[in-house]
């Protein structure tokens, strides 16, 4: 039996069960109820069974011994104290490593064979599957008395060569074993009749039969409709689609003959559908990242000797895989930080009149075109005094007074080289600082801010775009140059005239809000002619600013390419893009100028 067909299924199922195992082990400690241990036992049992079936004996043995230990806990012979849970978690880690190693090594040669399945596999194995996109299969049989059938089949393929819609044939090369039967695969654009005529013209053909390729498809449909795809290929596809969208937008601007109009409209519809599909394809629930977090908090809390409850909300919220892959590390850092510096010791909490057990909440929700993730603790709040002390020691802060606002404090905390840990602790002092978190979030086109209240707790709020590939942007002009501002951060655009207030001032009042007016001409160092006639209102968290521009050109879909900052370049750009008219433009990061 060919076990390699089951590897994907094995991968996803072991992944699921390892998570379940770790999750229930962490739960086991805080809530010694029987349901957690029963769940862990079930997961270990499943892992044992499927690993043995794949012939991964080492994995099965490890799972078996874990099962035994869990059984002892279940029967009450072993108490599920912290030490036991530590040991069980370590065993689960070992099991996970063994699974990874086994998957890399491939299905075991010593796997049990299923004899009956082999016979049918043998028959089917002779026929290679129709290539993707096959709509028609042409079955060809040569006359039994045809001499040198292999040469005749070569002539058939030559007769078909260059025919539109030809996908290939089976066999595609002919040797002494060739029995005079071949299958030719055609896609929907092919003219089957013309193909049949061409095949017959090659001579010695006894029979040509054209068949829709449905039977082949149903055979594979029985297996699974799930496809695992390398994320890079998906990225490539998304990039290609993004460029196609940009080309489409350019096409719309070029004067086209009337008869092309319908086709362009249709092109737009199809592109829209494709983009929708692509977004859906790339969407992954946050659960994939959230699953890891209980373990992170548990381990960190154990190290510093604190009791902390972790509450997760919004696990079903979906994000682009590319973003999801990037936010795991910042989230883990924020959590370790909350455990290490946020939540106080039990004694300190009781003294402050708080519950002994600390609480950290990670919540996610959809918010317009973005996802907001909040990491909130009920600890002592960020100590401004200590941050300033550290910053002074590192030569990063020379003002006499402490930061006046949370934003200022957070900016200070995110400076490279600032670590507030008194010693490099095993928990958060792993070389990942707040600066890395901030940079990562910004690189994704997102924003992060912090609110802290002494004695009450600290909240970090991240706003992330849902997808990376194509972004809606506002195109603006400043000093004759075009710039793109991602709409994620734009709440509205207003005209600057006498009714909106004094344009020369540094503040702008829009309805009930007064906000700073940032002059992009000044920020970008533009000296040429032009007048600021409009402002784009950027909104990050509850901070707002108006960015004054010379002209609002319009709204466009852009494909953002991030880049590493070029030396001497203004830090307010997060990437570059090609605009609809093919001109390159820099993507402005409003966050950096607010």
């Amino acid at each position, binding site marked *: 039996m060919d076990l390699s067909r089951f590897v994907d299924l094995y991968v996803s199922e072991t992944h699921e069960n390892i998570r379940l195992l770790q999750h229930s082990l962490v739960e086991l400690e805080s809530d010694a109820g029987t349901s957690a241990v029963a769940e862990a036992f079930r997961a270990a049992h499943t892992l044992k069974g499927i690993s043995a079936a794949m012939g991964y004996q080492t994995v099965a043995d490890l799972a078996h011994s874990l099962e035994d230990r869990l059984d002892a806990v279940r029967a009450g012979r072993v108490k599920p104290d912290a030490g036991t849970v530590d040991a069980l978690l370590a065993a689960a880690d070992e099991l996970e490593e063994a699974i990874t190693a086994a998957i890399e090594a491939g299905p075991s040669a010593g796997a049990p064979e299923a004899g009956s399945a082999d016979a049918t596999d043998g028959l089917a194995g002779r026929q290679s599957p129709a290539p993707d996109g096959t709509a028609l299969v042409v079955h060809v049989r040569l006359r039994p008395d045809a*001499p*040198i059938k292999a*040469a005749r089949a070569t002539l058939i393929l030559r007769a078909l060569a260059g025919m539109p819609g030809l996908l290939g044939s089976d066999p595609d090369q*002919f040797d002494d074993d060739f029995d005079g039967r071949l299958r030719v695969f055609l896609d929907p654009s092919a003219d089957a009749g013309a193909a049949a005529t061409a095949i017959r*013209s090659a001579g010695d053909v006894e029979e040509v039969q054209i068949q829709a390729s449905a039977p082949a498809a149903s055979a594979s449909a029985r297996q699974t409709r799930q496809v695992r795809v390398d994320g890079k290929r998906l990225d490539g596809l998304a990039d290609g689609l993004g460029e196609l969208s940009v080309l489409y937008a350019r096409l719309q601007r070029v004067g086209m003959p009337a008869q092309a109009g319908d086709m362009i409209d249709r092109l737009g519809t199809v592109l829209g559908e494709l983009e929708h599909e692509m977004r859906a394809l790339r969407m992954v629930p946050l659960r994939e990242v959230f699953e890891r977090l209980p373990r992170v908090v548990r381990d960190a809390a154990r190290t510093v000797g604190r009791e902390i409850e972790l509450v997760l909300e919004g696990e079903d919220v979906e994000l682009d895989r590319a973003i999801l892959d990037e936010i795991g590390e910042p989230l883990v850092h924020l959590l370790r930080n909350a455990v290490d510096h946020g939540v106080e010791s039990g004694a300190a909490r009781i003294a402050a009149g708080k519950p002994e057990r600390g609480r950290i909440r990670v919540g996610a929700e959809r918010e317009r075109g973005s996802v907001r993730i909040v990491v909130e603790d009920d600890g002592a709040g960020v100590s401004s005094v200590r941050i300033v002390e550290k910053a002074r020691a590192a030569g990063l802060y020379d003002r006499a007074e402490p930061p006046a606002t949370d934003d200022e404090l957070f900016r200070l905390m995110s400076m490279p080289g600032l670590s507030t840990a008194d010693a490099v602790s095993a928990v958060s002092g792993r070389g990942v600082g707040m600066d890395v978190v901030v940079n990562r979030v910004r690189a994704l086109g997102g924003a992060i801010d912090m609110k802290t209240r002494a004695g009450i707790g600290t909240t970090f709020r991240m706003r992330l775009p849902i997808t990376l590939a194509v972004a809606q942007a506002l195109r603006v002009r400043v000093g004759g140059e075009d710039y793109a501002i991602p709409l994620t951060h734009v709440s509205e655009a207003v005209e600057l005239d006498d009714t909106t207030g004094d344009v020369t001032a540094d503040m702008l009042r829009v309805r009930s809000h007064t906000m700073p007016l940032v002059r992009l001409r000044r920020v970008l160092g533009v000296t040429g002619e032009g007048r600021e006639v409009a402002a784009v209102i950027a909104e990050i968290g509850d901070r707002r600013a108006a960015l004054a521009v010379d002209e609002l050109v319009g709204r466009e879909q852009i494909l953002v390419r991030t880049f590493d900052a070029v030396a001497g370049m203004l830090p307010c750009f997060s990437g570059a893009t090609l605009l609809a008219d093919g001109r390159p433009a820099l993507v402005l990061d409003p966050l950096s100028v607010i």
Partner: protein
Amino acid sequence: MARTVLICDDALFMRTMLGDILKGAGFDVVGEAQTGAEAVKQYKALKPDLVTMDIVMPDMGGIDAVRAIVKEFPQARILMCSAMGQQALVIEAIQAGARDFVVKPFQPSRVLEAVQRVLG
């Protein structure tokens, strides 16, 4: 006007036999060659409607001759004449540009079918 044919084979017997079959079908045998090199030379001079080409010939083999002719005259209509057991060589000849093949010993009907396909 009768269609013209150049017959290339090192064996007189084969040339005669093929000539008879083709003359019977109304062809005008305008030339005969015993080597590949001669076949190429005669093709250039005669530009016949059809060429029959043996695979194994002295001097230059039939496959090389096909290559040389097709290179200069991509429209050349060449029918390979093969013995049994020359499968790989026939495939090579087809890839070199021969339009069809017949297998010795010749059956007149099969030869004429193949000729029809080559000219069709």
